């Protein structure tokens, strides 16, 4: 049995909200195996987004350890964390967060440019990724010219730009209607079938059901995995 790709041990995350102290995570332990498709579910404010942020190394735990691909990421410096994210993690957000001033192709190419991939290769790989998510004919369109579902697909293509070992998604269908959401869900399934490890945080029952494993959270704790 190979070691889990994500290994979280007794992680806590507190932060200040005005004068109060919020305990977003209160001792979470979790493993995600390579090739797995995990959905983290729970009511609003249970800490699932916070947990995702910690896995994605865009936040640091107050205590506890986080390992991704066997590497300790919880104590990385900003520069190391950024570089790690660039090459190992793909992030998909509820709000897509595409650069409105770039075309679909350019949006996908952005992380590649950062990773110093040559222009020719960038263009080829971006085009391939867009084709993979079903948007081969929309390369030159700006986000404002794309529907919500199309924008999210571009965002997913962008997340896959540097061939990450881990794909994280925070409410990816949150802004989409049922039909479009379904398209995204099937895309995730295809990705997982092709070998991508996926962790999603979601309210969407359909999306959660499509995952192989469900992790329930409540009040900053995992109640069943």
């Amino acid at each position, binding site marked *: 049995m190979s070691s889990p790709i994500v290994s979280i041990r007794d992680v806590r995350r507190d932060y200040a909200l005005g004068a109060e102290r919020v305990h977003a995570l209160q001792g979470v332990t979790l493993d995600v195996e390579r090739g797995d498709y995990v959905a983290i579910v729970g009511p609003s404010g249970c800490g699932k987004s916070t947990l995702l942020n910690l896995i*994605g190394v865009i936040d640091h735990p107050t205590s506890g350890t986080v390992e991704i691909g066997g590497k300790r990421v919880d104590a990385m410096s900003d520069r190391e964390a*950024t570089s790690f994210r660039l090459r190992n993690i793909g992030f998909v957000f*509820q709000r897509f967060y595409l650069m409105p001033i770039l075309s679909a192709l350019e949006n996908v190419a952005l*992380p590649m*440019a*950062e990773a110093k991939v040559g222009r020719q290769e960038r263009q080829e790989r971006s085009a391939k990724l867009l084709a993979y998510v079903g948007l081969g004919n929309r390369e030159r369109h700006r986000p404002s010219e794309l529907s919500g579902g199309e924008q999210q697909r571009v965002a997913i293509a962008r997340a896959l730009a540097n061939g990450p070992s881990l794909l994280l998604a925070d409410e990816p269908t949150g802004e989409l209607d049922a039909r479009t959401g379904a398209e995204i869900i099937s895309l995730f399934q295809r990705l997982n079938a092709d070998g991508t490890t996926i962790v999603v945080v979601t309210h969407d029952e359909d999306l959660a059901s499509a995952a192989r494993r469900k992790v329930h959270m409540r009040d900053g704790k995992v109640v069943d995995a």
Partner: protein
Amino acid sequence: MRAALAQASLIRHRSRTLLAVLGVAVAAAMLLDMVMLATGMRESFRELLLSRGFELRLAPRGTLPFDTDATMPGVGAITAILRTNPDIREISPVMGGSIHVRVGNRDVSGSVLGIDPAVQGDYQLLSGRDPTTADAIVVNDYLLGRLGARAGDTISVATGYDPQTRTYSGQRRLVITGRVKFIYGATEQSSSAMRRETLESMSDVSKRDRASLFMVKVRKGADAERVRDWIDAQLPNVTAISIATAIAQVDARLSYFRQLSLILGAVSLFVGFLLVTTLVTVSVNERAGEIAVMRAIGVSKAHVIQQIVIEGVAISLAGAVLGLGLGLVTARYLNAILSAFPGLPMAIDFFLFQPRAAWSALGLLIASGIGAGVYPAWRAASLPIAESLRREAIA
């Protein structure tokens, strides 16, 4: 990609970008003008002094050329002493005075220089010939106009006016042999020149064998300062002024303008800096979410800062180019005002465009553009990613 992002970002808010560019252009124009003012006087004066190749000027001790009515006695003796120095190539004695010409029932007055036409360095011949004969005189266009005369005309010239007795020491009929432009002439100045011997013959005895000024050319390769020191030692009645000294003197008199240029230049630079900072800060605050996302997908802090700084620099650059044109126009206007200084040679410019000065102004502006963008960019790129995303979600 970063440049493309910066460009796209600036175009996105066109009117805002344009406004900032305009503001920077105005600051750039003022900065350029102040840089031109700081160096203009000195440079154009130096060019003027060197225009005829005379490196040294001799005036009565303690005075500047034509600053006072004082004169140096013994032209012949002084010239003889000067000739003993092998480094001295040419000596041009000049005597200043004033003339009066009767035109109908009008009295036209003007200044006159008694010169040696072979070695003179005071005027440029426009047409006709030098006053090589005893009855020849050359005049500038302004005087010619006032006299209502033409080259070739004969005029009755008087000099050495005594206001007490209302008489002249000498009067002669002279032929206008040429039209000239006096290099050190001020605007609206009636000026003429004749042979020094002619002027002497018309002047009072007390004025004979005297000179107001000597202009001296040194041999090529000789050290003008050393010759100056030698002259100072040999001729105690005389002050020798090198170009460097003359410029220093003028600098001291016009130090006010240099200081003004420094203050206004600094203020312009500061305001330009403030503008770019404000624009970058506003732009960056709006894009807090975008910046957080860039960081989330793995773009390094340095690259985020670079992209934002490029925007600041682009605005500074565009503003600088626009400001160059604006600055040149304003400088001409201001120069025209200052050129009306009484007694100021027409050839002197207060605002002189020198490419070197322009480059330094441009460089300063770009540097301030970079500096202005760096801090807000750094702050924005350093915000905690998760918090920024959360705040964006709330917004």
